[in-house]
């Protein structure tokens, strides 16, 4: 059987017996998401990379004891990631902010790029001001598009508690970003264009 088609759980077990090819497939499958969650929670590229390394070191060390069928690998991996970020956030801060690299939109004009950068910086600043668990919930559900049930499992809370974190986080962001209902009243026809298809 091709290594690429093996499940995460089987690959982890193989890493446990020293298979570096299995490790490389797991890294290719999951490192981007681990890094992105860390970037959004920490707002610091160097720290996000450190956390990504810590997380994968934990994965490799746990691999030898991994039991197929006991837990879903991605839920466990993302839980380790969120917890590592929360640990970092609780440590006293040192040094300055190391910005997260952005994807440059080559099609945009310089003015558009400047505006986008400014909007992006405002949003990032607002995100960093959110309580850490609200930030984690938004990072998992909104940005990484993980289902509410799995996100709740990752954060080891109920779905209701997760929904509460999400709504409080979004409300706070709207306040900080001045997204006011009254300012945003739009004609009905435009408002109806929700993209809802049933």
């Amino acid at each position, binding site marked *: 059987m091709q290594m690429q088609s093996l499940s995460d759980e089987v690959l982890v077990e193989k890493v446990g017996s020293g298979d570096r090819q299995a490790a490389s497939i797991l890294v290719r499958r999951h490192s981007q998401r681990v890094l992105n969650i860390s970037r959004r929670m920490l707002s610091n590229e160097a720290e996000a990379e450190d956390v990504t390394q810590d997380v994968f070191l934990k994965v490799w060390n746990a691999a030898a004891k991994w039991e197929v069928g006991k837990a879903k690998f991605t839920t466990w991996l993302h839980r380790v990631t969120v917890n590592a970020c929360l640990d970092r956030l609780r440590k006293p801060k040192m040094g300055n902010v190391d910005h997260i690299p952005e994807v440059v939109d080559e099609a945009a004009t310089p003015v558009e790029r400047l505006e986008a950068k400014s909007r992006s910086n405002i949003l990032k600043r607002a995100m960093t001001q959110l309580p850490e668990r609200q930030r984690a919930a938004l990072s998992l559900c909104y940005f990484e598009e993980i289902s509410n049930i799995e996100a709740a499992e990752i954060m080891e809370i109920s779905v209701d508690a997760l929904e509460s974190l999400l709504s409080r986080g*979004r409300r706070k962001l709207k306040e900080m970003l001045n997204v006011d209902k009254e300012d945003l009243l739009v004609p009905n026809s435009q408002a109806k264009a929700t993209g*809802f298809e049933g």
Partner: protein
Amino acid sequence: MNKEKFLNYLEVYGADPKRWPDDIRALAADFFNSDDIEIVSAISAERALDGMLDSELELAPISVSLEASLIDLVPSSNRPKKEKFSQRLGKLKASKWSTAGLIGAALMGGVGVGYAQAVEQAELNAVHTMLTYASTEEFSDLSDNEWFDTGEAE
């Protein structure tokens, strides 16, 4: 689903129905198309926030060097261990008796070689001793018969 619940879910999952969990999205269909001014303005506010968040959806790809360093973190204790001699011997796929025979033969051979070497060494030591005595003055004039005379005849 009622209006209050819909507004609550709107604050949780935003204005894009695709982001709503399947089970509640089906129940919310009518509310998304409602003319209720409160619902319309709430959807607009959430859509504005979604727009801002969406601009941050894409982040730079992970670097090749970071990926490589993650693979390098696989600890050496996870790497395959060197097989023991007994394991390699087992892999010869010979029957257990032939494996035992091989071990027995090897042991016997070893003992035999060791014994032969010991005997040879003892003989060499005896000759060496005799030559040492023969080279001393006291015994150098002895004839062959005198050499082997044990004195039992007297």
